[in-house]
């Protein structure tokens, strides 16, 4: 968990270092067009569900095709740094209502409408009720776990790509194309079962490896200036975030029976596509 915060912080130092080197000669106000925004949206994520084989594939239990996973509440801030730089950040609360999901993009514009950016975001996904696999595939066993359990994975994506910025009077449209990788944390899980009409009891432990998955996607921002109060502008905004990645969860499975016998095996998960779709609508104030 600590690494998640250390790596982005080091990125920040590098990006801000580049910024100050390239603008140290400038004699203008460093921060302009400061914006704060508040929006409410919806996030839906899903990993393609493939047929289970002899072993559980945990990636099958990430997300649900039938409903959106989270309502999001998002606080945002954007500002221009000197002439060519823009910074866009957002703090998102998912269904746990903790403001833990941070998104940051630092953009450098080569032309007025075209630039490059680098950034990161962290987001969480749930592995929902994966152990039901055993209840379905081996219904004759007695299981000692509750009907609904989930494991939360705190993921972080690092990406870079081109950024497009177009302004037509009160309307502004900005899109970033992202390519990079997502770091998915490992996780542990376990359960116990007992044979029916038998004294035998077994504990099954899982230990999934952390992984780096290639990701690509796009973020868009559409703003409409509505009214002004002196130098302050109030407007509406719509924001979208799509990202896709290849997801594969490998893990170790260890069984310990009541007589102390153990059996351990490495299980390779199948690669499938993971998608994250997020949209939110809100208001912004520009100073």
């Amino acid at each position, binding site marked *: 968990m600590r690494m998640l915060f250390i790596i982005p912080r080091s990125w920040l130092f590098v990006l801000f270092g580049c910024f100050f080197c390239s603008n140290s000669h400038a004699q203008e106000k460093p921060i302009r067009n400061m914006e704060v925004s508040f929006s409410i949206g919806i996030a839906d994520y899903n990993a393609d569900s493939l047929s289970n084989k002899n072993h559980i594939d945990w990636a099958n239990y990430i997300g649900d095709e039938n409903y959106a996973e989270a309502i999001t509440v998002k606080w945002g801030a954007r500002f221009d740094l000197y002439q060519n730089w823009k910074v866009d950040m957002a703090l998102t609360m998912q269904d746990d209502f903790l403001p833990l999901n941070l998104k940051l993009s630092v953009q450098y514009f080569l032309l007025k409408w075209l630039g490059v950016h680098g950034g990161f975001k962290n987001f969480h996904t749930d592995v929902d009720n994966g152990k039901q696999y055993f209840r379905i595939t081996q219904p004759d066993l*007695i299981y*000692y776990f509750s009907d609904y359990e989930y494991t939360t994975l705190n993921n972080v994506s690092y990406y870079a790509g081109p950024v497009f910025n177009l302004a037509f009077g009160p309307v502004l449209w900005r899109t970033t194309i992202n390519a990079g990788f997502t770091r998915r944390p490992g996780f542990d899980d376990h359960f*116990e079962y*007992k*044979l*029916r*009409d*038998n*004294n*035998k*009891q*077994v*504990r099954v432990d899982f230990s999934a490896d952390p992984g780096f998955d290639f990701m690509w996607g796009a973020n868009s921002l559409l703003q409409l200036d509505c009214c002004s109060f002196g130098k302050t502008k109030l407007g509406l905004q719509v924001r979208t975030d799509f990202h896709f990645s290849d997801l594969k969860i490998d893990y170790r499975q260890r069984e*310990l*029976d*009541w*007589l102390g016998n153990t059996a351990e095996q490495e299980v390779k998960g199948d690669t499938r596509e993971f998608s994250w779709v997020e949209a939110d609508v809100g208001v912004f104030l520009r100073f």
Partner: protein
Amino acid sequence: MIRKVYIIFAVCFLSRLIVSCCSCNSGTIEFDFNQIQITNLDNSGSYPTNLDGTTMKRAAVAFELILSSEEYYYAGLIKRSSWGFSSASAFQCDCDPAFKPNQYIKNVHILTKYDLSETAKGNTIVNDLFRAKENSWGGSKVDDYQTIDEFVSELPKYEVSYDQQIRFHLFCTEEIQNDSTQFEIEVVFNDGMILTTTTDLIYLQ
């Protein structure tokens, strides 16, 4: 006037409070284990439960062993008052008595009276084919099951407690290849005393 009434009530309750402060007698009642009892368990489902009959699943043979003392029952019958406030005299409370055994279990032997399999013949010690676990009627974990020797070595020795019984479960690890089975359980204490009991004749399904 009201103030005087308050003062009178306050004095009464404070005096009551002071008298109510008492400490439990730190003495313990020493006893010897002299009773052994075995009951049949049904462990075919999620958790072991008491079995009324004598028919078990052949891979789920299980028993509960209870070691206790006759003195326990009588020692627990200390006369106590339950009228109004709990009584306290000479600052001694009516606390539950604590018990301390004079012995501890040194060994347990399980002898099968009938053949269990081709290799486990009748009238032999079959400790290796059993696992023991503390009596817990709720869920159990794989780590809770121990060999007889491990379990006995971890039993408390001369431990003072308010429950003067030792109860534990015994589970057979074999799927018994016979139509019926019966075991004799022998508990050896450190002072040389031996308590023995025999299970019912168990019919196997």
